[in-house]
């Protein structure tokens, strides 16, 4: 056990747990933040994605110890932002959401991508999504959603 301090969704947070605990378990089991999902548990599917220092990270393979001193944002907090409003509307308008299990992770991937690259090319979008698997859509509508978001949110990123 150790005291690990980090920022979680804007708030200073202290967790007294084993540092090898998976960040995903910290979020879901200790904090009740269930927006990040477990799809594979080995960093393949991206359903567990969260922002760490505003970059996308797979929380299922990030140990709590590596979260020390970092700034962690989950979909629960990101969904309060203006950027989220643009992204979520674009996902709806593009029809990008089917079963939804991958979608919170996709939103995180979208934010991480646009934050670095506000006007990504189609190839850059596909690379930005390469760690977020979707089995329903074939991805094209998600790519379209990100293009829409980038266009409509011009200046936000």
């Amino acid at each position, binding site marked *: 056990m150790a005291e690990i301090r980090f920022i979680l969704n804007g708030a200073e947070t202290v967790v007294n747990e084993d540092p090898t605990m998976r960040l995903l378990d910290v979020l*879901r089991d200790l904090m*009740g933040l*269930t*927006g*990040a*999902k*477990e*799809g*594979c*548990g*080995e960093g*393949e*599917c991206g*359903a567990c994605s969260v922002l760490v220092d505003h970059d996308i990270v797979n929380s299922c393979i990030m140990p709590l110890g590596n979260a020390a001193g970092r700034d962690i944002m*989950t*979909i*629960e907090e990101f*969904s309060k932002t203006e950027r989220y409003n643009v992204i*979520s509307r674009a*996902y*709806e*308008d593009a*029809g990008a*959401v*089917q*079963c*939804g*299990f*991958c*979608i*919170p992770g996709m*939103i995180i991937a979208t934010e991480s991508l646009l934050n670095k690259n506000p006007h990504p090319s189609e190839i850059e*979008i*596909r*690379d930005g*999504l*390469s*760690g*977020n*698997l*979707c*089995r*329903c*859509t*074939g*991805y*094209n*509508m*998600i*790519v379209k959603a990100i293009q829409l978001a980038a266009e409509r949110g011009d200046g936000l990123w």
Partner: protein
Amino acid sequence: MSDISKSIPKSDSAGKIAGETIYIGDMVLDDMLHAMTLRSVHAKARIKSIRLPEMPEGYFIVDHRDIPGDNCVNIIFDDMPVFADGKVNYIGEPILLAAGPKRKKVKEIIDSIEVEYEPSEPVFGYSKSVVHHEFEKGDAASVFCKAERIIKGSYSTGYQEHIYMEPQGVIGLYEDNKTTVIGSMQCPYYIKNAVVRTLGTGQENVRVIQAATGGAFGGKEEFPSLMGCQAAVAANKTGKPIKLIYERTEDIETTTKRHPSRIDFEAAAGEDGSIEALRVRVFLDSGAYIGLSGVVLQRAMIAASGVYTISNLSVSGDVYETNTVPNGAFRGFGAPQMFFAIEMFIHHFAIETGQDPLALRKRHLASMGDPTSTGGTFRDPIIMGDMIQKAIDMSGYDEKIAEYSKPGDHRGIGMSWVLHGCGFTGSGEQKHIKAVVRLRKEKDDMVTILAANTEMGQGAMTTLRKIAAGVLGIPIEKVIYNNPDTDLVPDSGPTVASRTVMIVGGLIARAARQLKEKWVPGKEILVEERYRQPDYIEWDEDKLRGDAYPAYSWGVNVVEVEVSPVTYEVDLKGIWAVYDIGKAIDERIIIGQAEGGLSQGISYGMTEVMECREGRIQQRNMTDYIIPTAGDCIPMEIVIMDNPYPLGPYGAKGAGELPLVGGAPAVALAIENAIGKRIDRIPATPEYIMELMENG
């Protein structure tokens, strides 16, 4: 009124995007116990003894001895136990559950259980037939007797794993003499009927509620009945909520998959080059229990002549039991295997008989009024001619196939033609399902659709609400569709077989018309509709004779590829498709189904490798079982035709499965065109392509 096809926002999107939608794994109930499964490590064995550790307070073991009713998962065949009793038939077969408040302790208990097995010789391959069907059309035997030339082909297909993003999971509860199962599922009433039987209790004592379902594709058709029964038995025994959520590796290794198959053809070539008679033999590997395999076999067999009219047809097929994980429903349900095989075979037949494949295919293409493979009739207009031309024009098929067929060119293009029988095979709806839907109008004039069909991403909630609102002429916001709860909704049947819009949506449209007639503002009104089979349908379930389906959806798929001569990897270069699904209730939802389905079909044909060795699945996680990423997929051009089916709501037919069915043959034909070598199995992996290119 605006066209029903015009897209509207999906009812369920906002919550899913925000991460607020609660899936089964997200649910936490007071006093809940976590359950884990102890599984067989042998493909076939007798269980001699099970030694349990000393159980700490509050921890439980649940096994076959705790089952009050039948130790049998109610599917079609009564061969699959809820918990193994004295013997196991595949690696991963569930033996018992351990449950308790702390997952760590539960895991320790599972790890410390000692099972003594007496292994015996397992059965693999196509040797032990457990279901056999056959049917004839015309007189194939005498054509073959006189045939001058007989062309043969044999095709095989591998497993396909659903990889719904959300692994399987249920919660079982027991309160006041009532058992409730909440979970990720397609068919609440399948689970209810299974739990009633396993508990040996009355219908009134079991309730099933669908949780938000993170993808299914058939994988949550019959399988959740097993987990539902286990969780129900455990909840009854312990009196506490039981949460049973699969790990991904557990899900991949032990849940149902698409059946591996082998399909053999023999065709008698007529003097004019046509196929005078076709003999087809289907082999399906069911795994350890039959489950739905017999019905999957029927759908495969009925599709034996593809979209073609062949006058003399002899079809036989068997389901073979093996000591491997049971296979089951998967989008397409036997049709993807057969359409891969028949599309390749007709192509190969043409080449061997020195004909242009496209011309031969066009010559045999079914038209309205033609007899179906089972001697029924294609009653509705078939617009494949237009669709094919459209696909050819969009893709530049004619020019490309000529250019790419030159030696040394590693580009290729392939086109598949498919149909999909909508709804249950034969009289399934009438005899077995007997769907009922209700609409309930409240005093505030809000209308709730009462049906058991599930939203699993395919858009059922939005589509069904649209149908009701459209017929009633009220705004969509006035129509409610909740996740089904068997205590509140009648049994409108399972969410399978591309039946939800055509059959259930059709009933909802009828109910809405009834409600509209009775409509009085401010008054509570309840209306009900029951399924009635169209009068013209005649089906002999034993002989597989007559109209196998009330209607058919049709598709043309074109895939263009480039194969690397260095690494044999396949690059997708273009994807085009044209579908006739009657009428799109919501165009964007249909495009979503089309793109997602076709993408699954293409990767079934070229990417997704799953092997079973000595009864053990080799690709056991998402690192090893590869599905496409966004970087593997490319934009698609999809056209949805308007060809309304008179008995479907707004003319709609089935759409969910159709796009998957033609993906594999289109990409396989494209690869064949690229490398100039005949492909007779899928997935057409780089390893296989290397063998073909290097060894001829």
